[in-house]
């Protein structure tokens, strides 16, 4: 059984385009401190996906680094999707920037693959208005079509039945399953063709279910074999909204509860959803429908995100495409389901039950207190106590089976204080005074020598005698940038209250930068 003939339309660099940045400037979009997209100009400098923010900045000094905004990506993609609506009503969104539809109806109606591709170019070209270009790939199955789109300039049509031959020379890494492809490469199977040549039963025996799916993809078949299960009872969930909502903040709340409801229902049946239809009905009886697909199965949070993005895209669209009235009903219809693979909880690490609980409570607190209320540590690198590690919102990282990158642990940061590190690092340090034996403020000369030995520390109203001290350890940072330039001298001081402090002198003012409590 051959795969469904599919057209994939791909707008390159969508995260950059969505943020409204021209592609001829060096721009990188980061998420959780990693580059996820870069403009062509930035790529010329060697800024690639997966780089750390600092590495990217070091390759291109004038790089503009922007935080990813998925909601905006989805919202700005909606007009592109709307432009395809009169070619086929069933356009599915793989992710903002990439969409797909089955060719069977449109191909017959418009007279063949090439004419549909031309039509897509024409329609989407208008919607994009030159912000980025469009690549169209047509092949058997969404996987091959997606790769055809990446190889296209601007259109690549793989003839019916030719998909296996088209895929065969490609590297196995396009499967995007690092653990599996790593093993395959070590076994000497570098191309999809050589992997596809293995007997399916052997692949299943050695690599399990995931390996079997990857094998089907490599062979140019549909990812999922035809499902023998009975047509499902109606698993859709819906919610009435009264009074009709015309602003996103008034419908957003229903996204989460609908998603949770749907997920719970599917969970009970032991199935997971890979494609979902989001449908909204307005007070004037218009029906809006959009399909979203996910490579893995959609989790409750992922469904909620997509519902919110989609509603936002409809309600904030251009005046012509916006619904004429408020939304009165939202329904979620699981369009394609697969048996849930049943996540196995890890024994020694990886995904464990404790991780799952912690991730759930973090999500709950974010819902109650705001998205930035729950923070998690992340590496950043630097020489000061407040720079080595930083806090990022928990929503930007995956908490289950998380591991902190340690790769800049070995990076030298000259001037870094040796351990032990201070246990208190105030975000806004308080001022202090450091006096010598004659009650004059201790200063540091341009050559890094202190004017006298510190004997008294004044913090607030308290005077402490200094029992031990060392310094000054001067730091002259970012002297090449007049705005960021900082010259500081650091002292470690132990006072008679027993506390050890890191005192910093900057522009004639002493600060308590850190305390070893």
């Amino acid at each position: 059984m051959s795969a469904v003939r599919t057209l994939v339309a791909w707008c390159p660099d969508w995260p950059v385009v969505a943020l409204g940045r021209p592609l001829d400037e060096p721009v990188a979009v980061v998420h959780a401190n990693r580059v996820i997209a870069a403009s062509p100009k930035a790529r010329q400098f060697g800024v690639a996906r997966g780089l750390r923010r600092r590495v990217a900045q070091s390759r291109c000094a004038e790089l503009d680094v922007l935080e990813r905004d998925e909601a905006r990506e989805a919202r700005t993609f909606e007009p592109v999707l709307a432009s395809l609506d009169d070619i086929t009503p069933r356009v599915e969104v793989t992710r903002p920037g990439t969409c797909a539809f089955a060719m069977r109806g449109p191909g017959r109606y418009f007279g063949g693959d090439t004419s549909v591709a031309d039509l897509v170019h024409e329609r989407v070209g208008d919607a994009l208005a030159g912000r980025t270009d469009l690549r169209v790939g047509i092949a058997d199955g969404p996987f091959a079509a997606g790769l055809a789109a990446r190889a296209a300039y601007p259109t690549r049509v793989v003839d019916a039945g030719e998909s296996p031959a088209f895929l065969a020379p490609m590297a196995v890494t396009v499967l995007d399953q690092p653990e599996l492809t790593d093993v395959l490469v070590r076994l000497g199977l570098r191309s999809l063709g050589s992997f596809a040549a293995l007997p399916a039963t052997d692949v299943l025996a050695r690599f399990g279910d995931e390996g079997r799916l990857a094998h089907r993809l490599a062979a140019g078949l549909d990812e999922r074999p035809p499902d023998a299960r009975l047509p499902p009872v109606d698993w859709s969930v819906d919610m009435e909204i009264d009074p009709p909502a015309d602003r996103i903040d008034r419908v957003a709340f229903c996204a989460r509860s609908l998603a949770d409801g749907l997920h719970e229902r599917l969970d009970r049946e032991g199935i997971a959803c890979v494609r979902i239809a989001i449908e909204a009905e307005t007070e004037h009886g218009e029906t809006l429908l959009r399909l979203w697909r996910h490579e893995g199965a959609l989790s409750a949070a992922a469904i909620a995100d997509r519902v919110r993005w989609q509603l936002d895209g409809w309600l904030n669209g251009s005046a012509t495409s916006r619904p004429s009235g408020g939304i009165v009903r939202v329904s979620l219809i699981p369009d394609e389901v697969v048996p849930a693979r049943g996540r196995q909880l890890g024994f020694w690490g990886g995904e464990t039950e404790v991780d799952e609980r912690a991730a759930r409570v973090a999500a709950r607190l974010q819902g109650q207190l705001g998205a930035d209320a729950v923070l998690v540590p992340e590496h950043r690198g630097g020489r000061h106590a407040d720079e080595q590690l930083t806090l990022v919102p928990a929503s930007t990282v995956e908490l289950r089976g998380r591991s902190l990158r340690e790769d800049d642990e070995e990076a030298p940061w000259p001037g870094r204080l040796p351990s032990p590190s201070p246990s208190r690092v105030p975000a806004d340090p308080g001022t202090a005074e450091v006096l010598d034996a004659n009650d004059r403020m201790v200063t540091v000369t341009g050559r890094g020598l202190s004017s006298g030995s510190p004997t008294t520390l004044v913090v607030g109203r308290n005077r402490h005698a200094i029992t031990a001290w060392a310094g000054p350890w001067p730091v002259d940072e970012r002297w090449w940038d007049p705005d960021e330039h900082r010259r500081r001298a650091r002292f470690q001081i132990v006072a008679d209250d027993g506390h050890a402090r890191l005192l910093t002198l900057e522009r004639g003012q002493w600060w308590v930068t850190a305390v070893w409590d």
Partner: protein
Amino acid sequence: MFDTGSMAAAEQAVLEEKRASLRLVADRMAPLALARERTLPVHAALTGLFPEGGLQRGSVVSVDGVGATALALAVAAGPSASGSWVAVVGDPDLGLAAAREAGVALERMLMVDPSGDRVGLVLAALVGAVDVVIVGQRARVRPADMRRLGARMRERGSVIIRIGGGEQAGVDIGLRVVEHEWAGLGVGHGVLRARRVLVQAGGRGASARTRAAALLLPGPAGEPLQLGTEDGKTEEGEHERGSDPRRLVS
């Protein structure tokens, strides 16, 4: 010589970590929860402070005195190293590098800094979901909230560590740094290396008998060390851990 020493120490640490996680798994799988099994492992240097040799699940620990923060991190390090999550409530200034050096796994750490009236709500959500909750001094917990939490904690098996909470009601074990002295820093020379502390533990029930432990808190690498066993080595060995801060940076 120095290399083999540190390697042996690293192996020891790995072994220790594996044992701790084995204990945690055994703990989880035990069909019958005896009081002694309902404990979270603590760092080896601190076992003497707890009557069961570990943190009793469902208990409230307070830490006080100079070095309370380091002590709180040291208490949290044991469970964290063996797979538990640690949440920090109302203490945004906590030194993350110090937490990592103390042995807290930062990949299993959450920081929440709720406004005053939300503290009760946040704690109620965290208790039961994470094993260890460190409550900073900025988070004011009302006694009524604390009582409500107590029942939930005993049921779910979470532990609360309160920094500077010694005088509060509902504390099961109170740890207090009674003596402390920094080593390594002279007058105009040296660098902070370690702090010798004497920690006293007292409390209710099984922990009523006062216990004490002499520790290096933090030790030269930031992690707590028991004094008496490795005293001489920590004084002299491994001097240059980080880069020299005295070097001018440009």
